[in-house]
């Protein structure tokens, strides 16, 4: 293990300021997405590693957003853990935003036009009344087509955020057994951003940023004294 890095106060204060700037960027992105369906907030926190300087870490906050009823038969929401799986040009992606629709070939696609995957692949829906059960079984006019794929990741697994409320699954992904699923038809999941706590976090960032700057200026003043005043002839 490398030994602890010796740090001086000035670089510590500068690192703290950089960390807080990053945190403010994360908060601004969360607030900008306060009304993005299926959005999951990022949390930013400082991490002190081996007595080195403070660094920013981000983590995905996977708590559920509130559900809004839309009465649209192709709007789906997952209650509890779990993601829908879509096929994108970059591979399979996870989404919580279940505002699905049909494309020109009557294929079930997400908001970005990527096919939503069932256990046997993408769906083509015939005309008729669409009914989607708790376990994600898709029926049209009472005839079962196939079941939607619903997957989850292990606790503590880190998902990567991609734009368009998509997440890159990690190696711990696994299908959710049908008995443990709760898919709600006619509902969508809202953003899980808590604007109140983001507001207080932002105030805290601002005040700590000011404090770190004061620390930096104070150390600078002390150095100024030792450089300029100590050597002065009496």
């Amino acid at each position: 293990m490398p030994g602890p890095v010796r740090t001086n106060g000035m670089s510590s204060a500068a690192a703290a300021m950089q960390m807080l700037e990053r945190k403010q960027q994360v908060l601004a992105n969360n607030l900008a997405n306060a009304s993005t369906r299926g959005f999951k907030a990022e949390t930013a926190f400082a991490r002190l590693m081996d007595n080195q300087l403070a660094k920013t870490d981000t983590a995905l906050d996977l708590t559920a957003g509130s559900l809004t009823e839309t009465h649209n038969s192709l709007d789906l929401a997952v209650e509890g853990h779990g993601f829908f799986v879509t096929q994108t040009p970059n591979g399979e992606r996870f989404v919580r935003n279940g505002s699905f629709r049909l494309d020109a070939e009557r294929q079930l696609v997400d908001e970005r036009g990527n096919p939503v995957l069932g256990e046997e692949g993408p769906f083509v829906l015939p005309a008729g009344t669409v009914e989607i059960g708790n376990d994600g079984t898709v029926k049209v006019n009472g005839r079962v087509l196939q079941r939607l794929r619903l997957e989850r990741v292990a606790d503590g697994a880190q998902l990567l955020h991609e734009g368009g409320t998509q997440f890159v699954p990690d190696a711990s992904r696994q299908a959710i057994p049908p008995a443990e699923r709760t898919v709600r038809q006619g509902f969508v999941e809202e953003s899980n951003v808590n604007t109140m706590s983001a507001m207080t976090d932002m105030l805290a960032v601002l005040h700590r940023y000011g404090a770190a700057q004061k620390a930096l200026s104070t150390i600078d003043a002390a150095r100024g004294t030792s450089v300029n005043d100590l050597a002065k002839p009496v």
Partner: protein
Amino acid sequence: MDPALRAAATGMMAQQTRTEIIANNLANVNTPGFKRSRAHFEDLLYQTVQDQAILGQDATNTTAAIQVGRGTRLSGVQRMHEQGPLEQTNRNLDVAIEGDGFFQIQLPNGETAYTRDGSFQISDQGQLVTSAGYGLQPPIQIPIDAAELSISSTGIVSVRRGNDIEPTELGRIEIVRFANPSGLMSLGQNLLAPTAASGQPVVGFPNDEGMGHLQQGSLEGSNVEIVTEMVEMIAAMRAYEINSKAIKTADEMGQIANNITR
């Protein structure tokens, strides 16, 4: 420019668009057959500041990737096709659809448009037309000596002619259904046009399988609920405000940083 400033600015623009859509909904609170819309947003691409890293030699101490997002953008506007309330007008040419379905309207350019607004009139040619004067498809011709026009829940239009006791059937109103009515495009004047997203129309008679039934003497009101829109408007205003606070905070941080050297 500070990425926090830019992200917050995209948030303000998103809330402004949301307010524009709410304003249009509220303006159409008394428009028959109007369906409210809702804005959809999505987050922009993320910048991966630092990839996943292994810290210790034993590979047990790893850090997750650090990602910072860059804001939001409008991804779509969705029309919500829930049933509007049926308002009784007792006018025999007012027809509401209760359930799924749209009337077919012939546009002057020959194309067919679709509407839920069933406030029909009789044209100078004796045809059943919309309030804008576009003919209902298939056309229904009403003779000059017609009285007591009645439209059944299954769409059969009948009248009593002259001194007849038995009513005469004039025709039957056909309605259509779409796989994804939210994908229809608004043309204004309460008219909708099919798109690739809505799918092709499925023609049928009212009250047939999956189709709604007709109700004469009623109009379907707008499905805009003032209270819901007001709540949305308050939420949009607060979200706008809080994004402006994010801009202010980022700006003040910039000022503090500028004060390091005086």
